[in-house]
């Protein structure tokens, strides 16, 4: 096992299942909505499995693998079939294709877990590498910075995000200092290690807003909830948008939807 490499040869199709993620389900309805609008613009037929809840990541990261496996088993029961599963979050996607198989290494039902892992895609990765879209027909006059969420490491998502953003008319993405640094969320980490987490968040915000961008973007609402929550507390008003919202808004601006 090495870097969080995405599984090879994942199936692709315009008939997909959407994994909303618990964060979007509970807090960020518009991000989920934007994901649907973007996928439908691309001609996708979307199925939203009713019983879905969470990917099991909080317990997995906290070391409570037994609890995590309980949630993962439920997830596998909910996402049946063989359609690609699209997740608007780098860390939930990585949980499905990397974390879950790790937690099930010694379990009898590993093959079922692996099967779901093998058809799961992070949103940008799916658009570029699954559907083969390399030009985004949107338009957005803005100067932005982007937080490369840690769980995009090793997958082809950062490259996909860059491809999409670079082709949006009028959009400039400014590089940030110390792009490799984590925002300090890490799920229960931010609760157990509140002081370190806060210092990490401060550093991240500093780097993100250094060039006074119009928009701060991310591909993971976990990170965004953390550094966004800190920005709110500090009265920093810079607009924050998820990758899906940027793609959708730019389509609207260009009159494509």
């Amino acid at each position, binding site marked *: 096992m090495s870097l969080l490499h995405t599984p090879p040869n994942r199936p692709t199709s315009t008939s997909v299942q959407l994994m909303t993620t618990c964060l979007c389900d509970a807090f960020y309805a518009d991000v*989920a909505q934007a994901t649907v609008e973007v996928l439908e613009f691309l001609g996708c037929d979307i199925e939203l499995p009713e019983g879905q809840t969470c990917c*099991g990541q909080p317990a997995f990261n906290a070391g409570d693998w037994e609890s995590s496996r309980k949630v993962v088993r439920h997830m596998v029961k909910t996402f049946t079939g063989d359609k690609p599963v699209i997740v608007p979050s780098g860390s939930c996607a990585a949980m499905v294709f990397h974390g879950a198989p790790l937690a099930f290494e010694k379990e009898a039902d590993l093959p079922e877990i692996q099967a779901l892992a093998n058809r799961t895609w992070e949103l940008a990765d799916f658009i570029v590498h699954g559907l083969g879209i390399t030009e985004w027909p949107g338009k957005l006059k803005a100067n932005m910075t982007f937080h490369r969420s840690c769980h995009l490491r090793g997958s082809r998502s950062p490259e996909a995000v860059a491809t999409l953003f670079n082709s949006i008319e009028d959009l400039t993405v400014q590089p940030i200092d110390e792009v490799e640094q984590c925002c300090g969320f890490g799920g229960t980490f931010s609760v157990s290690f509140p*002081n370190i987490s806060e210092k990490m968040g401060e550093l991240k915000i500093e780097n993100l807003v250094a060039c006074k961008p119009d928009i701060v973007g991310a591909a993971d609402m976990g990170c965004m909830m953390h550094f966004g929550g800190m920005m709110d507390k500090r009265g920093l008003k810079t607009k924050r948008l998820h990758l899906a919202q940027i793609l959708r808004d730019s389509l609207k601006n260009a009159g494509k939807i």
Partner: protein
Amino acid sequence: MKTKQKIDTVARDLSDEVHEANFIGAKMKSERRYAALGRDYADPDKLRETAGKIKQHTLEHLDQYLEQAEASFTRNGAKVHFAFDETAARQKVLDIMNEKGCKSMVKSKSMLTEEIHLLDFLEKSGKEVVETDLGEFILQIDGDHPSHIVTPIVHKNRRGIAKSFEREGLGEYNDDPETITRRARAHLRQKYLDADVGLTGANFVSAESGRIAIVTNEGNARFCMAANKVHIAMVGIEKIVPTDRDLALFLNLIGRSGTGQQLTVYNQFIGGPKRPEQPHGPEEMHIIFVDNRRTEVLASDCREILRCIRCGACLNVCPIYRQSGGHAYRSVYPGPVGAVLSPLLAGNRFPQLADLPKASSLCGACNEVCPVNIPIPDLLLRLRDKAKREGASEAMKGTPKLGMWATLCSQPSMWKTALTMGHTMNYIPTQLVPHPSAQSWQGTRKLPKFQGGDFRKWFKNRKKK
């Protein structure tokens, strides 16, 4: 902020001065490392993967390679010893010194000797031991411990060092780095000449030729063997690589990953004592292979950590290490590598260090820079699972219980009810939410507005249109 985790406490209470020293040191090196690898190799990741595979292969056939190494060293005229644990390793060094009537030792930097507390032991046994790496020398006179595996005194600044030198009678206060270095050099020169035995570690061992490779930036390892009767090399069994040819890859990687240098300044290859035709060099070379629970680690599901070549790259890039510094890890190996290795090497003291694997946001930066591609986050996770199963209390402190949550997440109807009910949260001031996580969150962050179920409703209605 209130906190139950030890590393978080250290980070909170760290003096600004030490914090800044740690931070700048780590940041500078990781920047240089990124530049050096990216500039010199088109595909550094491929290189890291190859290096990782070589080490993994060696570990999987370690018994064979150890035997081969033993035979090669013996052929070269060196004496090979095996020490199962720290007691045996320390005793072996003392025995060799006593046999040869040696009273004083000069030693170069080695984390393994820190691991087995060699210095204390030898001093208590009446021997004089002098550290010759400048950083280690400063730690020795201060009675301090390394806080980084490559730059052991990254937590210190030159004013403090100048004061220590003054205190030790090494000249009047002067905090000019060059003066400090010159004074240390003059002091150590005599120690080299007076010593009877020189001890070094080894960065790599070639099983094929029976050669150790030592890299330093100060050349002190060389002096530690040049003028002495006896050279002792103390090596962890995991330091073996199959052939001399492999050294090329590892020497290229260790400098770039550790300090951002293309090659460390001094690279020494030593295969045995001096031969009759050679004018200088130790008459005897002893190599002590130390296990000290490494075979236990090899048998565990975290064996990949034994690939580690102690380059320090993961420390430099680790956000937790940057904020807390090395001493927070309460063990010889700090940072990400330490968070995995230290609890494993602790044996039945595992519960006492079981909190270390928790000190990570699992960001994966360590894995990304590791020259031997160790999946450190995976290993941290495995250790968290182990700590949970074994009920190690150090690990549980401050971590919310997730059993109830798991039940909620496996029952869609309960989940949906919770989503709708959650709306009431928007009308309660967050300070009143009785959960400790909410408490610690709202100190510095605002929670987003609850919108449970809104998306699902939208999705359904949209379909009806």
